[in-house]
């Protein structure tokens, strides 16, 4: 039974779109499809800059997200602790993984913030060589989180409508709807969402939706002592990120790059994007993630051809045997 506050993606009244809503060509799907079906494809595929508008929200607040500047992360894990406390997430293991100071190992249903640690024998920008003569060294730290993608595969594949887009442009799971089918788990190109074993439902970062609704910033951003995790409207964060990137490049840190910031990437840009100091795969992030839904129209076409082919094959199988098989034989 669905609770009163549960929603589906499509029980919003349709409304006209303004010029400001569109960032790209209209790939709205075939016009002969009825609107409820088409809108699913449309919000999944169209290059709208604003996913909340594409979902059907009217007069919604500006899209918000995270900009995580990993160049100032100190690896304190205050974000992990704050997230667990605010969201009452259960303890999920006390391992010594051996992965430097990372004992969380990765994002999961019970870890919505994960700080990655990478020790490298490369210089950290401009660096004096140490007295021991061992040479260059740097320690990369980054707080990973759900990316709240513009085109979110988890949301697209959820069959119950448990995963929805909020008016802030974030993606959340409605725990009272989720039946634990687990389709979102392999769909996410970043490996974020997972199913809680003892509970059976899927959980992930909500960007502290309940805090957003009262005008507060998410717990992790609030707790971060160095402001590595910055929260705000996405436009403003992108400007800040570009500025910070230029600053780092001027300082000689040519390896610095933005990740997930480009609205033209495979997921339409992330609601939580990063400034990284090395290739994404070093941090455990996919170099070029693509929302799986992008290939879905082609998949459906091929499924259709295959289904018709099966039916035709059966018909031919009977036609080819009509001569010899008739009457009952045991």
């Amino acid at each position, binding site marked *: 039974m669905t609770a009163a506050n549960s929603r589906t993606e499509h029980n919003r009244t349709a409304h006209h779109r303004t010029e400001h809503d569109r960032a790209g060509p209209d790939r709205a799907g075939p016009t002969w499809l009825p609107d409820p079906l088409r809108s699913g494809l449309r919000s999944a595929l169209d290059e709208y800059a604003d996913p909340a508008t594409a979902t059907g929200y009217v007069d919604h607040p500006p899209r918000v997200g995270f900009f995580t500047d990993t160049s100032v992360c100190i690896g304190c894990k205050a974000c992990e602790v704050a997230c667990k406390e605010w969201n009452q997430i259960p303890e999920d293991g006390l391992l010594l993984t051996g992965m430097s100071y990372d004992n969380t190992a990765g994002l999961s249903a019970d870890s919505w913030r994960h700080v990655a640690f990478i*020790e490298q*024998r490369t210089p950290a920008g401009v660096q004096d060589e*140490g007295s*021991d003569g*061992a040479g260059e*060294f740097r320690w990369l730290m980054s707080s990973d989180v759900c990316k709240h993608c513009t085109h979110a595969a988890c949301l697209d594949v959820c069959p119950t409508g448990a995963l929805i887009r909020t008016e802030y442009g974030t993606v959340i799971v409605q725990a009272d709807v989720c039946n634990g089918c687990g389709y979102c788990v392999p769909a996410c190109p970043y490996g974020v969402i997972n199913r809680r074993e003892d509970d059976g439902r899927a959980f992930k970062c909500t960007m502290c939706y309940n805090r957003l609704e009262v005008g507060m910033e998410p717990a992790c951003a609030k707790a971060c002592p160095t402001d590595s995790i910055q929260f705000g409207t996405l436009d403003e964060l992108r400007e800040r990120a570009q500025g910070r990137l230029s600053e780092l490049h001027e300082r000689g840190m040519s390896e610095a790059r933005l990740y997930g910031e480009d609205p033209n990437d495979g997921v339409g840009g992330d609601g939580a994007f990063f400034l990284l100091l090395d290739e994404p795969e070093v941090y455990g992030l996919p170099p070029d993630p693509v929302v799986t839904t992008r290939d879905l129209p082609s998949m459906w076409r091929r499924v259709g051809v295959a289904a018709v082919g099966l039916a035709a094959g059966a018909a031919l199988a009977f036609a080819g045997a009509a001569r010899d098989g008739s009457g009952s034989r045991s």
Partner: protein
Amino acid sequence: MVWDNVNCNDMDLQLDAVEARVLVTDRVPPITVQGRQTHQIGLPYHWGTSGYSTGDAANDLVGVSLDPNVHIQEDKAFACDIRSGRRPRGHAKADLVRDYRRRAGITRDTGMNI
């Protein structure tokens, strides 16, 4: 698993071998002291027998010794040995510690001259 052992007076009052999980890292390189390479081990305090994560307390390694300059307990840096495997229990541990003391020539008077 690693257990650790440190110089101690022979009062037999102190638990002087602890075991801990180890993370080997490049970040803290070895230092050369009087021509000998000495590695550095960092141990966090305040493990104990209650809480989510239990284990031997690093505090147990520390001798009750006085810093001669400021006259407070000297418990920030000391020399120790590190071996892999589980710490011996019971009498075996006491025997091992006595063995170390004997080899190091530690007596009741060690470290008592201020």
